[in-house]
């Protein structure tokens, strides 16, 4: 990987921040300021102004790094073009910023109050970003107490009944966990079962934590169906 990475990395300006906890170390919260959390290691792609263009997931291969860079380069180009007055580029860069959470949905709506000229694909992406924002707002600040969790669950179930379905990796499990929580409380077997199948579609081939997740929820589904343990 290292030799391969050396060749691959020539196209970038490389920056590394090693958090050391040595007294006097600066910028220890730099990662938090960029993405709102501290998890190491993390790989980010930034433009020359330091704006976030992309984030690598937990699988770090050259192919995925290049994909992150290609998408980031496209966003960067749109950013330049939008500054020159290109309307489509403004739409693209705003939706991209929504998708990587560098702006809020409220901020994006102010940048693009009029969305009649969106392409079909742009409208779809905007819809998903709006849903992602609603999911985020419903679960923000939810504690371990039953009351706040059930309140979030009811809100999420309402989105489910409206036919909304998330596509972002970060939203799928969150959405369905809460939908299923409410579905269980009102004995909506169909919603509960759909939740399990939707999560299985995404994570069904995983092991470890997921085996326990599926076992737990399948047992609950059997109970809801009156099939016992």
């Amino acid at each position: 990987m290292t030799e391969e990475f050396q060749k691959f990395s020539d196209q970038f300006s490389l920056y590394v921040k090693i958090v050391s906890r040595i007294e006097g170390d600066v910028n220890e919260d730099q990662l938090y300021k960029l993405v709102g959390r501290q998890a190491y290691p993390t790989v980010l792609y930034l433009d020359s102004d330091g704006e976030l263009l992309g984030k690598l997931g937990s699988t770090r291969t050259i192919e995925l790094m290049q994909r992150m860079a290609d998408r980031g380069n496209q966003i960067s180009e749109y950013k330049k073009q939008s500054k020159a007055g290109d309307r489509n580029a403004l739409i693209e860069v705003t939706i991209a910023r929504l998708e990587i959470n560098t702006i809020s949905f409220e901020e994006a709506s102010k940048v693009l109050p009029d969305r009649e000229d969106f392409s079909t694909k742009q409208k779809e992406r905007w819809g998903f970003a709006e849903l992602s924002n609603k999911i985020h707002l419903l679960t923000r600040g939810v504690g371990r107490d039953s009351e706040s969790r059930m309140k979030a669950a009811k809100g999420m179930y309402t989105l489910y009944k409206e036919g909304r379905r998330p596509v972002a990796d970060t939203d799928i499990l969150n959405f369905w966990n809460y939908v299923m929580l409410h579905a269980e409380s009102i004995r909506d077997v169909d919603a509960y079962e759909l939740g399990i199948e939707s999560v299985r579609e995404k994570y069904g081939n995983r092991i470890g934590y997921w085996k326990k997740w599926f076992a737990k929820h399948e047992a609950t589904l059997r109970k809801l169906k009156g099939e016992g343990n």
Partner: protein
Amino acid sequence: MKITVATILFLVGIASVAMAQRKQPTQEELISKLAAKKEEAFLRNAAWRYDFDKAKEIAQKEDKRIFAYFTRSYAP
């Protein structure tokens, strides 16, 4: 019963103090860990910059983007 509860609480208290006093790494150890981290092949064999402003300056001058790697040395 009261004596048993008091004993349990006392033992829990002792365990908490012991855990709190668990050895924290010294500054020297943290400096040594940082040096070891910088020697890892992944960091040694590519042109990493440790100064963000410098990385931005190079990116602007050479029309490049920044590939930023955030990691830690104080723990695995």
